[in-house]
C-alpha cells in the first residue's frame, strides 16, 4: 500500500485502519470538523485574528528579546483577550453545536452547513462565559502540562524556569484554549484530538501548528550567529506563533476536513 500523503481524505485512513484490525468494539465514529459561526463578522474576524495576534507579537518582539520574562508576562493578558474575542465571535462553544457522532462527515465542507452551527448557542454574551472559563481552565491545567513537556523536550531545568513556564502559557493560550472552548471536557473528543484522529479544522490545525512550530523553533538556537534573539525561549515562542498562524490558516482552508495519517 503506497500512501501518497501524510494527510489523506477523511474517508481514507481512519475507518480503513479499524477495518483491518477488526477491533473488539466498533471503531469510534469520527467527528466532523469544527465550523466557524455563520456570521459575516465571524467569517471576517477569523482571518483578521491571526494578523492581530502576530502583529501584537512582532510589535513586541524586540522587547521579548531584551526581557523575555516581563514582555511575555505582559503579553499574556492581551493574547488571552484576543483569543477570547476570537472564540466568542467565530467558534461554536462546546455543547452548543457539537456535531453529533451520527453526523455524516462532509468531505467538502459547504458553507450551507454552517447555519446549523450558528443555531442555539446563546449569542455572543452566552459564549463569553464559556470562553473565559476555557481560558481559565487552560491556563491552570495546560500550562503546567506543557511546561513539563517542554522540559522533557529539552528546556533547561536548573535555570530559566520562568521563561519556560511563560512559553508554555503562550502556547496553551494559542493552541489549547480554543480546543477546550469547542470540545469542553468531553473525554472521547480529547482522546480523538490526542491521537490525531480528529479531522483537521482551524482549531485543531492551529494546535498542531503551534506544537510543530515550537519544536522547529529550537533549530536556530545552537547556530553561532551570536544574536540576542537566539536565547531561550524566544525562538520557541516565535516558532509557536508562526506555526499557530500557518496551522490555523491551512486547517481552516486547504486541509479542512482531512485526517492526519501517521501509518
Amino acid at each position, binding site marked *: 500500500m503506497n500512501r501518497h500523503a*501524510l494527510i489523506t481524505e477523511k474517508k481514507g485512513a481512519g475507518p480503513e485502519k*479499524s477495518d483491518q*484490525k477488526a477491533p473488539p468494539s466498533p*471503531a469510534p465514529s469520527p467527528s466532523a470538523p469544527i465550523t466557524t459561526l455563520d456570521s459575516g463578522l465571524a467569517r471576517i474576524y477569523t482571518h483578521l485574528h491571526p494578523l492581530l495576534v502576530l502583529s501584537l507579537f512582532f510589535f513586541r518582539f524586540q522587547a521579548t528579546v531584551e526581557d523575555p520574562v516581563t514582555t511575555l508576562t505582559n503579553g499574556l493578558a492581551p493574547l488571552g483577550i484576543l483569543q477570547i474575542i476570537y472564540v466568542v465571535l467565530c467558534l461554536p462553544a462546546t455543547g452548543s453545536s457539537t456535531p453529533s457522532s451520527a453526523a455524516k462527515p462532509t468531505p467538502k465542507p459547504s458553507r450551507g452547513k454552517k447555519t446549523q452551527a450558528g443555531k442555539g448557542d446563546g449569542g455572543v454574551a452566552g459564549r463569553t462565559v464559556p470562553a473565559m472559563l476555557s481560558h481559565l481552565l487552560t491556563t491552570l491545567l495546560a500550562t503546567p502540562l506543557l511546561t513539563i513537556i517542554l522540559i522533557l523536550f529539552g528546556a533547561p531545568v536548573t535555570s530559566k524556569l520562568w521563561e519556560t513556564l511563560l512559553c508554555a502559557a503562550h502556547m496553551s493560550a494559542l493552541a489549547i484554549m480554543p480546543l477546550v472552548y469547542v470540545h469542553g471536557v468531553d473525554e472521547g473528543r480529547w482522546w480523538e484530538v490526542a491521537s490525531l484522529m480528529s479531522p483537521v479544522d482551524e482549531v485543531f490545525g492551529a494546535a498542531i501548528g503551534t506544537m510543530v512550530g515550537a519544536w522547529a523553533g*529550537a533549530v536556530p538556537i545552537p547556530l553561532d550567529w551570536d544574536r540576542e534573539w537566539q536565547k531561550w525561549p524566544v525562538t520557541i515562542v516565535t516558532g509557536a506563533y508562526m506555526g499557530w498562524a500557518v496551522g490555523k490558516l491551512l486547517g481552516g482552508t486547504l486541509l479542512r476536513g482531512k485526517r492526519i495519517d501517521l501509518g
Partner: protein
Amino acid sequence: MATLVIANLLIPAAVLTFAAGFFPYKPFLPGLAEHDVSERGEMPPAQFDKVILMVVDALRSDFVFGKSSGFKFTQSLIANGAALPFTAHATSPTVTMPRVKAITTGSIPSFLDVILNFAESDTTSTLAYQDTWLAQIKAKGGNLVMHGDDTWLKLFPETFYRADGTTSFFVSDFTEVDNNVTRHVPDELRANDWNALIMHYLGLDHIGHKAGPLSPNMIPKQQEMDGIVQQIFEAIENDPHLQSTLLVLCGDHGMTDGGNHGGSAPGETSPALVFISPKFKSISTGLDSPVEPHQDFDFYTKVEQSDIVPTIAGLLGLPVSLNNLGVFISELLPLWKNERHHVLLLLNNVWQMHTLVKTAFPHEAYEHPYSQLDCSDPSSSGMKLVCKWRRITDIIRVSDGREPAPPVILPALIDFCKSAQEIMSSTASNYNMAYLLSGIALAFLSVALTTTSARSIIFRLNAASLYFGLVLVLYGILMFASSYVEEEHHFWYWTTCGWIALLCLQTLLGSYIKREGISKTIFKAAALLLFHRLVRAWNQTGQKHSGEPDFVTSFLLPNPHTVWILVGVTYFMLSLSLGSHLCRHIPPTYHVLTHIAAAGIAIPAFIFKLSFTARDAPEIVRPVVGESGMRVLEGLSLVLIARAVFLLCALGTVWVISLEVWGRSPAKRNAPRGVELFDALHAILSIFLITQTRAHNVPLFLLFSLQFLCLRDALGLQSTQTQITISTLLFAHTSFFALGNTNAISSIDLSNAYNGVAGYDVGVVGLLVFLSNWSGPVWWAWGGICLLASQGALFGYLALQTLFIAGSLLAIMVACTALRTHLFIWTVFSPKYLYAMAWSLGWHLLVCCYGLGAIWWAMGVS
C-alpha cells in the same frame, strides 16, 4: 540485495579515496642538512654547546608569565634579563605528538599526524629518519638524553644515549609521572656526557585534564616546575661543565578553560617559551614580570612554535633542519656581537627555506637570478615568494661581490622567511582534487545504488519514512554549518524527541482504535522522554558550553556513594538479565547455579571497574572503600583482571550460543530463533562495553536499557523496519554524545584503550579506543539487532541505514571540499570527517553489518 552489498562495499572505497586526497601525506625532504662552507661561507660561531629542553606538557603562557603564576623564580629571571620570554603559537591539532614534531623538525605537522598520534608505533610517524636538531647534534657526535613522556621514544627510536620513558596512563597521576623525571635531574646535571637533555613533564597536563587550569593542584605543580628551573639554572651558574648550557623551557600546547586541548582556541595554541641562560643578561636588561597579556594569552613577543628549531640550531652552531618552516627569533641575534653573523644566521635560514619553497612553488627565477620578473603586482602566493627572493638576490647583486651591509639585507631576509613560513604553513594547496572528487563520486554512487535497490521502502510515503528523509536532509545541511558540527548533539537530541512524540502518536492511534492501552502508551512515551532528558543532561558536550556543570559534575562526582550504587545496580541488572536468559534452556534445579555463573561474569567486571577507577579517579573511590580498600584495589593487576573479564565475556558468548544451538528442548527445536538469543548476547555485550566506559557513565547504560524496554514495548509487534532503523540511528547517535563525545579530537577518551593490553599493539588498542568511545552506539546497534530479530526481514534495515551512512558521508565530503579554504577546515570539518570515517567503517560496516550477519546466521540455523 546484491546492489545493496555493492553500495556497502563502495562506502570504504569512497571514505579511503577521499581521505587520501584530503589528508595528503606530506612529502618531506630526506637526509640531513649540511653546511657547505665553500658555497655559503663560514658558519656563525655557536653560542652554546649544550641544551636542556624542558617541555612541560600543556604549559599555557599565562601559567609562566601571568600574575597568578607559580613560576616566581622564572619570573625573576625574566626581570633581570637572564630569561627571554615568548608566547609560541602552536598550530592545531594541539596534541603532543604533532607539537613535538614541530619543536624538533620545525615543520607544520599534517593532520594525518593526529591519527598517527593514536597509532603511535606506526613507523611512518617516527622522526628517526628526518632532519631534526636532535639528528644534527647526533651527526656532530653528540649524545642525547631523554626523560619523561615516552612519545619521544616512539618518535625517536634508538636515538637516545640514555632514556627513561614515562607513559601517560592515568591522568589522575599528578606526581609519579613527574617524579620519574625529576629523580634523574641531579645525576644528569653532574654528568658530563650529554649535549642535549630533554625532559618532558606530564603532571601539569594531567591536572588540566582532571580539574582544569584553576585546579588547586595547579599552583603547587607550577612551583614544583619552577623549582626545577631554579635547580638547573643554579647548576648552569655554578658548574664549570655546564657553563655554556642553554635551558629552553616550553609548553607543547596550552589548554582550554575546561583543561582540554586539541583544537585551536587561543588557550590551546598559546604555550609559553622561555630561553634561559646567564649569558642573556648581556643582551637584555630584563622585562617586566609578571605582566598582563596584550590579548587572550599573548604575552611578550609572539613567535611560531617552529621558530624554536632554527633558533636552537643557530645557538648551537648547527645547520638548519631541512624541513624547517621556523624563522630565527630575532630577539636573540644580539648574542652575536658581529653583525655579519646576523646576516649569516638568517642566510642559512633563508637558504634552507628557499629549497622548500622551490619544491612547493617551482619557478625559473630561482635558478636564473637575472631573468625578467614582473613584481609590480604578484598575484599568487608562489609569485609573492619569488619576488621576495628576487629582492634578496638583487641586494646581493648590487653589492658587487662584497658583503651587503647588514641593515640593508636583514629586513629582506626576515621578510622572505616570514612570508615563506606563512604561505607554506597554510596547507590549502595540498588537496588532491582528483581524489576528493572521486571520493564524492563513489559516495554518490553508493547513495544512488541504495536508493534504487530500496526504492520501495524509501519512497513509501508514510510518516516514518518522511521523518527519516527529514533527518537525513537536515543532517546533510547541518554538515555545512561549523557551529552545528560542533554542537551536533543538539540535532540528535532534538530529532529523538520528535521521533518519540511521533511514535507515541502512532501508537496512540492504534490504542484509540482498539480503545485500550491509551494511558499505558502515554506513560511509556513519557518515560522514554524522561529517560532521554536524563541521558542528555548527563554530560555537557559540544564546544560552546563545554565545561559547564552537568549531571555528572554537579551531582554524581560530589556524591561518590550514589555513583557506586548506580554502577552496582547496573551490573546487578545485567547479571540478572543474563541469568534469566540462560535459565530458559536449563532445568529449574540448576537455576540458582546459572545465576551464580552469570554473576561470575559481572562480579569480576565490577571489581575491574573499581580497581580501574581507584587509579583513574581515586576521589570517587576512596570515600566509598576507605584507605585499606584503596590499598587492596591498587594492588590488583589491572591487565590481568581486564583479560579475565574479556575471557569471561567470550566464554559467556560461547555458552549462550551453544545452549541455543544444542540446548534446545526437542519440542522447541524447530521454533524460530527468537529475540532471546540476541537479548542474552546483548547482556554480555553490555558487560564488555561498560568495562570500556568511565565509572560515572556506567549508569547511562542502565538508562539505555530502560529506554530500550520502553521502546520495544512502544514499537510493539507491528513495528516496521523503518521504525527500527530510525530508532537505532537516533538513539545510537544520542548515546554517543550523551557519553560526553564531541566532533573534536580533544574529546577522544584514551583512558580505556589499554585495558588488558600489556605491550602496545596498534590493532588491539585501536579497537579498544573505538569500542570505548563508541560504546553507546555499539550498544544501541545491538539493540536494533534485538528489535530486528523478531522481524525476520533485514533488507529494509540494511537499506535505510546504508542510505543514511552513505548520504551523510556524501554531505560531509561535499562540505569538506566546498569549504576547504574555510577558516575552520582543520579544526571543525577535518575532525568531523575523521569521526564520519569511524561511524561508517567502524559502526556501520563492522558492528551493524556484523549483527545483521548474526541474525542471518541464526535464521539459517533454525
